[in-house]
């Protein structure tokens, strides 16, 4: 009888607790403060900067040039050439860089990329009127593989070295600066003997990027650090090819997202 009574009480409470679990009021979320961070995330994704003093001087020089020389120059240039005109000029230059993309793809063993770049070059050269229109992408869905020598060196396992700000050219690493020497040497514009052509190509490209530069620069207190972090993250994304929306990580997501 006693056991039965205990059982009765137990079952009653079980029922009651089950029903009460359905009540909508939840307890307050208790958040304990994290006093000391166990890991310095900033240093994980930051570049070594042993020549910070030099880099900051060059950065200030570049920034001064950007704000007081290139920005007004590009503003004037942008008034003469409309945005789509500037875009198409840049597209044709990118098409001329085919050889660099091809070699950089082959250096990384990206044979599919090399093939796609070759197809893109010929399609854009012919149907795209000398590369002014990127019909390879818009008509045939061929995504660009704009690889460079710095990316190829990175794939070979060569580390970035350290942060290195180049006069006028801007943020780089020691490895990418070496890559840039090869880039300039292999660039078709270097070998076309038209005075000022290189400057024109540079100004045209920068005119499309000045807005982006200012959008990072203006809200930052330490413009150097912001630019360095953003540039390096972007560069790492380029090296891992995560800047392509057709990257297998994004397309073959297997329900990850």
């Amino acid at each position: 009888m006693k056991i039965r009574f205990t059982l009765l009480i137990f079952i009653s409470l079980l029922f009651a607790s089950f029903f009460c679990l359905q009540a909508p009021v939840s307890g307050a979320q208790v958040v304990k403060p994290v006093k000391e961070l166990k890991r310095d995330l900033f240093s994980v994704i930051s570049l070594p900067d042993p020549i910070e003093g030099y880099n900051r001087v060059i950065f200030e020089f570049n920034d001064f040039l950007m704000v007081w020389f290139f920005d007004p120059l590009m503003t004037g240039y942008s008034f003469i050439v409309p945005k789509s005109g500037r875009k198409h000029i840049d597209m044709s230059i990118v098409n001329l860089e085919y050889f660099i993309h091809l070699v950089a793809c082959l250096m990384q063993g990206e044979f599919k990329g090399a093939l796609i770049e070759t197809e893109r070059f010929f399609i854009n050269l012919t149907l795209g009127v000398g590369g002014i229109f990127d019909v390879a992408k818009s008509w045939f869905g061929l995504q660009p593989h704009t690889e460079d020598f710095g990316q190829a060196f990175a794939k070979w396992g060569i580390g970035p070295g350290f942060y290195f700000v180049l006069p006028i050219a801007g943020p780089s690493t020691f490895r990418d600066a070496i890559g840039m020497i090869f880039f300039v040497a292999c660039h078709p514009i270097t070998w076309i003997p038209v005075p000022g052509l290189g400057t024109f190509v540079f100004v045209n490209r920068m005119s499309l990027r000045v807005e982006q530069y200012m959008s990072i620069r203006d809200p930052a207190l330490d413009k150097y650090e912001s630019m360095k972090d953003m540039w390096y993250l972007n560069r790492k994304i380029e090296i891992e090819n995560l800047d392509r929306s057709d990257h297998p990580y994004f397309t073959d997501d297997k329900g990850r997202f």
Partner: protein
Amino acid sequence: MYNYRYRSLFQCFMLALLTAFIFLTPSLACFAKDHATVQIIKVKGYNTQDEVRDSIRFALCRVSKSNLSFWGREYPINAGFYNKGDICSVSVVEDRPKLLYKLWMQEKSAPLVIVLPGIGSHFQGMGLNAIAQVYYDAGCSVVIISSAMNWEFYMAASRSKAPGYIPTDVEDIYNALSKIVAEIKKDNVDKIKSVHLVGYSLGGLHTLFLAEREARSKKKIGFKSYLSIHPPVDPYSSMFIMDKFFERGTGWSEKEMRLKIERSVAGYLQLVDDGLSDDKVKILKDEGEVLIAYAYRSSLRELLLSICKVGNDMGFIKEKYGFTKGALYKELNPYSFAKYADSFVKKAAAMRLGNDLSMKDMASNSNLHTISEFLKTADNISLIHSLDDFLINKKDVIWFSRVFGERAYFFRNGGHLGELYTAEAKVSIVKHLDLKF
């Protein structure tokens, strides 16, 4: 025998039913009371992922270029909403640089809406400009300023050695807004019909405290209505949640951590450039948490840098602010918000107020519960939130619906601010501000 067994089973069942009824009645009553006033704003076709990845969709709040003419698109300098805003300045605190703000004035007389952003945001931030555009397109003149926890506001308008204590921050914002509104009214006498205040995230919390501040002010700014979007109830707990996000990757190897950050940033950039892909943000949940924490911690680090720049480090930082900053950053990087609050904010508040405060005092004075009586009766304040915002919990939702009653509107999903890009949200933030046209 059988009869006895059935009878005891029946007794058992009846007793259970009775006990459940006793326990359940108050809960049911509570449920009915709490949920009766929760008004849901429906969003068509919102494919939710989770509260973290939904929050990242705030990146889709961008200044719209669709209403630009052909010439505006081709020659974008000074065309488009972002560039059309005038960057103005006003002196707020003596011997300090002027406070910058951005202003879009309508041609004709219109309501003036001031928008306060989330923690650490600069007035040139894209999300803030996009919300300003919603109000401008609805026919209002709009002003935006940087967050009280942004370096720009701190260096120009904060009278504390370190911002973060809500009551003193609210005083500083109120002081700055009174000067900004006076300046605008001076130059545009007949162009302002009424003044309204909107804030989101931490700015939403500031908005509610500012409403209370305005109510007891003798020299009023003259706000006609307020809208608070996604405010936290307890800002300190919310910031500790962000600290926790930052700690998420503690178990990851350095390589894994780096790759996850790269993937999350790549996914974020794709979202900004191309919008949602397959109706999804292509970032994993843990990557999203680290990404949110990284953005928030970057702004805290920048705030700390500005504190060091003006020499207000109060002895907490050994390294001096100089031309090179590598060593200084090494000292600033490990600062969580909890550490910042427990050192900088606590000491700065004590110096400003003349009496020591414990963390518990600071947290309770910054909590919305302190002004609940005022909020219950202020019928010119509305609230927009989402049920799954990670900065609040279910108890907070109930508290909001009890305090604001029919002035509280909730989205089912969106996490923290992640539904604001939708057309329904844009309509709602205009509709519930109670503008006087």
